[in-house]
């Protein structure tokens, strides 16, 4: 080993505390990057493989009923490659062991297994047999959630008739990677599931022999999706077609794509923050090392070592420091990547979801952290090369202090000496102080964002389940029914109050924009369903005209007072002009509301109802559920308490873990910055502090002088960080402004308190690690050493 190499290793060992602090920050950044990149790539690879291997369709459409012969016409449309027609029906399920009724989507499959669009992966059991019309395949998550297995039976109401279905296989489909019911944000796998049934069996139950009500297709190469959709819509118009949509509006794909987009953003900015902090830390550690080794550097130069060799020596120090963090960071990142991947596997269901580690997952963090090492070292290396041997042999001039604003304005006189020292030390290196504040501040910000996401979801849930959705049970009919159905519902056991509503599938148009949506007709005295604005005030449904959620108004480009065209997508398919009478502000989904009577007038129908919101006496709930399971008219039942539980469960499991890891990583940044700053302050001012000890200052007094500066920086950084965090959250809000949900910019008190406390604890612990060294100050050496 060359003498320089030995020196390098000894310096690394000597500064091991600081090296470790930098390495930990690097490790956190690398781990975050590897975790998110590997999760991203794995999820994306799983998606791509699944979509191509199981022929996920490009365009989807639902319709009332069309003869099978229409399939040929669809196939003949320009740009269409393959077509699959199906019968799809939403049913109420009676699952053994589940008190409440569940909702099921029955999707037809050919009686004989064949390659098809949206093909199934059969996890267990066997395919259905044509001779057994009651055989079904059940989606894996639904089966898991309800502990269903091959051979189990479950009840279902098919077109008004109760049937017992036999589970013969457990399957997965690329259409239901994220298995949620329409209008739901989080999956409730116990109460919503997809079942696949033979085409003949399902068709005969719904009188759809030789017909279909659902079609999906793939596009030929180079085909224009929008054009195909337009032509398909035209073709399906007279068969009761709801608008066709592409993959981007396909519910499962949309959730998956949104998630991928989010990981990609986080995979970029979070590691960037860590590496920025690492660069700063390497810079301050190396700068100090160069100052301490001035004489050595001069000596080496005097002996004839070149600038390049000496510069390289310090660069190596930075690189080795980074490498010390890189390797554990990679390993921890892969471990967390695996964990994250498993977490994703709970929500996104693929036949397999292996952790994919592409070369880039390793390569980029390595490259980026090496670049960070060089960036951090560059200042120190420059200083080394600029140093003249003769000059370097002399000790560095004493720290320069001059009168500043504090002295000129006379404020200094009012401040204790210790405070003056702190202020002057900070003012002497304002950039370092600023970067320290920024480094700690960003960490505070990361912690705040982590907490904010929990707050936002909590708030969304609180608003949704306590203000908007106040009904215990929502009952949805298969088809619109006469208002008298509400009376029957009211007679059911346990029903305290029932408020009927009308839901009409429509397409709203305004100029060139359009959106397919359901208009909900609410009665003006509705208590179980409330519409709120952004300040959570109740919004009355106007007597006439549409009330739109802001997001929908934005999509359509309309304001209150504008007129939109409303095309009804069922029945007689009327087209009407309606005024936008008001806007509301919901966090989940998009919606359009109308006064029930006004809606009936508009559609010229007799008070039809699509379902009812129920207030239920919990004592009789199970009795009610049992009845609802068997009611032919009922197409779907949603139970608020079950939904709340399921959402809470997901939030707790997924968000809390991620939030904890982010807090930990952020605490490492705080620790890294504080520890290094204090170590360097101790190194720079050790003589000063030891002198004070000689003069009779106690350890505690000297500690205050040493830590005061860091305390001031940390205390400054907390409000700065909270402001930064607020800004980061405010930036996230528009990024999450989606049709599915919007994040409210709300904060609980804890979101401010928690990061502040975590930062203080992390800072105090790191400072205490250094504080021990105050005891080891050499009081005797200081009498003899030159600054």
């Amino acid at each position: 080993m060359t003498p320089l190499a030995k020196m390098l290793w000894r310096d690394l060992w000597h500064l091991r505390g600081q090296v470790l602090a930098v390495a930990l920050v690097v490790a956190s950044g690398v781990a975050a990057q590897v975790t998110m990149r590997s999760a991203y790539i794995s999820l994306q690879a799983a998606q791509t493989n699944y979509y191509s291997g199981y022929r996920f369709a490009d365009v989807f459409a639902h319709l009332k009923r069309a003869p099978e012969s229409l399939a040929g016409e669809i196939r003949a449309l320009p740009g269409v490659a393959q077509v699959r027609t199906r019968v799809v029906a939403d049913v109420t399920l009676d699952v053994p062991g589940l008190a409440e009724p569940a909702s099921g989507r029955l999707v037809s499959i050919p009686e004989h297994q064949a390659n098809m669009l949206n093909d199934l992966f059969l996890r267990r059991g066997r395919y259905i047999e044509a001779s057994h019309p009651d055989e079904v395949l059940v989606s894996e998550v639904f089966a898991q959630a309800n502990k269903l297995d091959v051979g189990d039976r479950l009840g279902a109401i098919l077109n008004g008739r109760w049937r017992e279905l036999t589970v013969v296989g457990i399957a997965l489909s690329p259409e239901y990677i994220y298995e949620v019911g329409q209008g739901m944000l989080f999956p409730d796998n116990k109460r919503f599931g997809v079942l696949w049934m033979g085409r003949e069996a399902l068709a005969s139950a719904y009188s759809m022999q030789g017909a279909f009500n659902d079609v999906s297709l793939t596009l030929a190469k180079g085909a224009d999706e929008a054009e195909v959709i337009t032509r398909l819509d035209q073709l399906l118009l007279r068969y009761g077609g709801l608008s066709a949509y592409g993959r981007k509006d396909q519910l499962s794909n949309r959730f998956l794509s949104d998630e991928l987009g989010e990981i990609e953003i986080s995979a970029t900015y979070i590691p960037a923050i860590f590496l920025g902090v690492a660069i700063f830390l390497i810079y301050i550690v190396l700068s100090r090392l160069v100052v301490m080794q001035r004489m050595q550097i001069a000596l080496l130069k005097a002996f004839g070592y070149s600038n390049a060799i000496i510069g390289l020596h310090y660069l190596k120090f930075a690189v080795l420091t980074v490498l010390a963090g890189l390797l554990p960071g990679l390993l921890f990142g892969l471990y967390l990547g695996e964990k994250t991947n498993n977490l994703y596997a709970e929500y996104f269901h693929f036949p397999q979801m292996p952790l994919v580690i592409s070369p880039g997952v390793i390569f980029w963090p390595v490259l980026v952290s090496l670049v960070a090492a060089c960036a951090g070292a560059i200042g120190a290396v420059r200083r080394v090369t600029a140093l003249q041997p003769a000059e370097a042999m002399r000790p560095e001039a004493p720290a320069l202090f001059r009168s500043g604003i504090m002295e000129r304005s006379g404020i200094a006189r009012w401040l204790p000496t210790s405070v003056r020292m702190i202020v002057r030390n900070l003012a002497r290196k304002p950039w370092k102080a600023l970067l320290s504040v920024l480094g700690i501040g960003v960490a505070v910000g990361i912690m705040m964002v982590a907490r904010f996401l929990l707050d936002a979801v909590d708030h969304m849930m609180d608003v949704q389940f306590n203000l908007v959705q106040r009904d215990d049970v929502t009952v949805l009919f298969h088809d619109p029914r006469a208002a008298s159905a509400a009376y029957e519902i009211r007679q059911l056991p346990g029903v305290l109050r029932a408020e009927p509503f009308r839901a009409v599938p429509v397409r709203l148009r305004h100029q060139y924009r359009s959106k397919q949506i359901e208009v909900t007709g609410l009665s003006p005295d509705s208590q179980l369903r409330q519409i709120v604005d952004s300040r959570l005030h109740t919004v009355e449904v106007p007597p006439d005209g549409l009330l739109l959620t802001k997001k929908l108004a934005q999509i359509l480009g309309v304001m209150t007072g504008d007129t939109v065209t409303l095309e009804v997508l069922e029945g007689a398919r009327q087209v009407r002009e309606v005024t936008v009478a008001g806007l509301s502000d919901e966090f989940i989904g998009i919606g359009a509301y109308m006064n029930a009577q006004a809606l009936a007038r508009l559609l010229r129908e007799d008070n039809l109802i699509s379902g009812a919101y129920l207030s239920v006496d919990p004592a009789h709930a199970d009795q009610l559920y049992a009845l609802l399971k068997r009611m032919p008219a009922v197409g779907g039942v949603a139970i608020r308490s079950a939904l709340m539980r399921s959402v809470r469960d997901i939030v707790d499991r997924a968000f809390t873990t991620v939030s904890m890891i982010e807090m930990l990583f952020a605490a490492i940044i705080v620790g890294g910055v504080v520890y290094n700053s204090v170590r360097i302050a101790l190194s720079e001012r050790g003589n000063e502090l030891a002198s004070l000890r000689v003069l009779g200052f106690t350890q505690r007094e000297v500690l205050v002088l040493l830590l005061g500066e860091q305390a001031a920086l940390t205390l400054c950084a907390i409000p700065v960080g909270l402001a930064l965090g607020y800004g980061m959250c405010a930036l996230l809000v528009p990024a999450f402004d989606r049709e599915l949900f919007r994040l409210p910019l709300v904060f609980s008190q804890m979101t401010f308190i928690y990061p502040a406390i975590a930062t203080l604890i992390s800072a105090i612990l790191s400072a205490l690690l250094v504080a021990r060294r105050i005891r080891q100050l050499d009081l005797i050496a200081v009498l003899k050493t030159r600054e």
Partner: protein
Amino acid sequence: MRVTPVSPARSTCVLALITDRGMFMPPDHEHSTEDFSHDSTESVFHVHRVNKIYRMGEVEVHALRNVTVDLLQGEFAVLLGTSGSGKSTLLNILGGLDRPTSGEVYYRDHDLTRADDESLTRFRREHVGFVFQFYNLIPSLTALENVALVTEIAENPLDPAQTLELVGLGGRHDHFPSQLSGGEQQRVAIARAVAKRPDVLLCDEPTGALDYATGKLVLEVLERVNRELGTITAVITHNAAIAGMADRVIRISSGAIVEVRQNEARLAPSEIAW
């Protein structure tokens, strides 16, 4: 300061007495008896048979050997010795920075031998003023603030501004160390040491980093402090010329006191040259 016995004429014969463990005589020995009766001035520090052994790796360094010495009220003492002679070790022990390996050190009735770190800190804070070779001023504080830093924690301090006047720096209150010359910095350091009215001023090579003229200026300040405030002043130096301004000169070599000399008359700093 006094060492037993005090008479310079007899110092050589006493050497063996105080440095050789085996030949040490108890206080009732004729010489000792004579010493204690010799001077009526109050003994402030009492160092008795002090040994200091450092362990440096596997090597034992005997820094002080059986040193016995007293410091008297108001005197100006110079500890003379070459580098490594043990004079700094003695100063460190007197200043409460270090504890002897064996022997006794008393400051009035405080036992410094058995004091814990906290008591030693209190001792330094209340009774000792230090002047360092390299001044060791706080760079972020002005001259006045450097002095005030110490008076803030003292019980009955001098006024910092007046103390600066005393060392001839009345006009430089608001200068930072980096704006002062070496001599000026050392005078600030002396003002800082003196301002809390210490009982003893311990100066470790106070002129070591200064040029001739500046060094003399600093010595004048020390002399003045000793004369006007009556603070016991002990100056460590390897510069034999400085010995001329002392009441007593103690020469240390290889950890032992080899000579104690009482000057007939103290020279003024202006009268000495090196």
